[in-house]
C-alpha cells in the first residue's frame, strides 16, 4: 500500500508545475497508469483526496487513463496487447515474449489549470 505516498508525490509535482505555469487554480490532474506499474488504481483514487488536502490541488479531480500492457512479439514482428498480465504470450500466435513495450507507465500526462 504505497499509493498514498505516490499520490503525495503526484501532488508535489503538480503543485510545482502549476506554479511554473502561473496557474491560479488546478482543476484536474491527468494520469497515465500502466497495468504493470505496480499501482492499484482503487487505492490511488482512495488516497487522492487525502493527498490533496491543504494543497493547491484541494478539490482537483484525478483523471486516470488505463494503459494496457503490451509486448513485442518476435514471431509476428509487431506489438501485441496482453490479454492478461499473468500470461506473457502473443494473443495471435501464442509465442512467449518478455519484451514489454507498454504498461509500466506512472506518468502525469497533463494538468487542467486556469
Amino acid at each position, binding site marked *: *500500500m504505497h499509493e498514498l505516498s505516490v499520490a503525495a508525490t503526484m501532488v508535489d509535482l503538480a503543485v510545482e508545475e502549476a506554479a511554473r505555469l502561473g496557474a491560479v487554480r488546478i482543476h484536474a490532474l491527468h494520469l497515465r497508469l500502466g497495468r504493470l506499474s505496480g499501482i492499484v488504481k482503487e487505492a490511488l483514487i482512495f488516497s487522492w483526496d487525502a493527498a490533496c488536502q491543504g494543497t493547491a490541488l484541494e478539490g482537483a479531480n484525478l483523471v486516470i487513463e488505463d494503459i494496457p500492457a503490451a509486448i513485442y512479439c518476435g514471431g509476428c514482428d509487431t506489438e501485441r496487447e496482453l490479454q492478461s498480465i499473468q500470461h506473457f504470450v502473443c494473443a495471435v500466435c501464442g509465442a512467449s515474449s518478455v519484451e514489454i513495450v507498454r504498461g509500466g507507465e506512472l506518468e502525469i500526462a497533463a494538468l487542467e489549470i486556469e
Partner: protein
Amino acid sequence: MMGTPRLVEIRQNVLKQNDLLARNLRQRFNDAGVMVISLVSSPGAGKTLFLEKTLAALSSQYRVAALVGDLATENDASRLARTQAPVRQITTGTVCHLEAAMVERALEGWNLSDLDFLFVENVGNLVCPSSYDLGENLRLVLMSVTEGEDKPLKYPTIFNSADIAVITKIDLASAVEFDLQAALCSIESVRPGMHVIEVSAKTGDGMEAWYQTLRPHQIKKREITEQAK
C-alpha cells in the same frame, strides 16, 4: 469570475526522482565494480536465512556486505552480522518498501570499491517494491514452497520486475505436497525464460548452484571496471 480551464501537457514520470537516484547508484556500483543483488519476497519466505548462508559462503573468497530493510527492529541485521560481513539495517518506519534514497543514505561511509558483492534485502512485500528501482544489477524474487504454486500468478508484476526466481524451503516440498512443475509453469507464464533456482538454505541443497550463478556476473563486472580504468 471563473476563467476557462486549459489542458497543459506535462508528461512527467511520477517516480522520476527515484529513477534518477537509482540510475546514479547503478553508475556508482559499476564504477566501483561491485555487483549489487536485491532480494524481494513476501514476509517469511526465508530471505534472511538465504542471505545469511550466502554471506557466510561467499565471504571466504569475496568481499561481501548487506543492507536489510524492515519496518522495525534490527533483528535481521544482528542475525546477518554473525557472518562477520558488514551489515546495515534500514528501518523504514511505516514505509512498505525500500527506495533508492534509503539505499543511498545507508551506504554513507562505505567504500564501495572495497566490495565484490552487496546484497540488499527489501522489506517483505510482493507488491510495492516492484515500482522502485534501487540501482541493483540483479533482482531476486523468492517464494517458499509453503506459499503455493500460483504465487507468481497472484503477483505477476513483482516476478516480472525480477531477474531470477528462487524457490526456497525445498526441504519441506514433500511435506506440503508442493508441485514443482506447477510452480515452474506459473513462473514461466508471467516471465518466460526466467532463471529459476530451487534451494533449501537450511540443508544447503541447491545453494552451490546459486553461488555458481553469481560468480560469472562478478568476474565480468570486475573486467569491465578494470578496462574502464
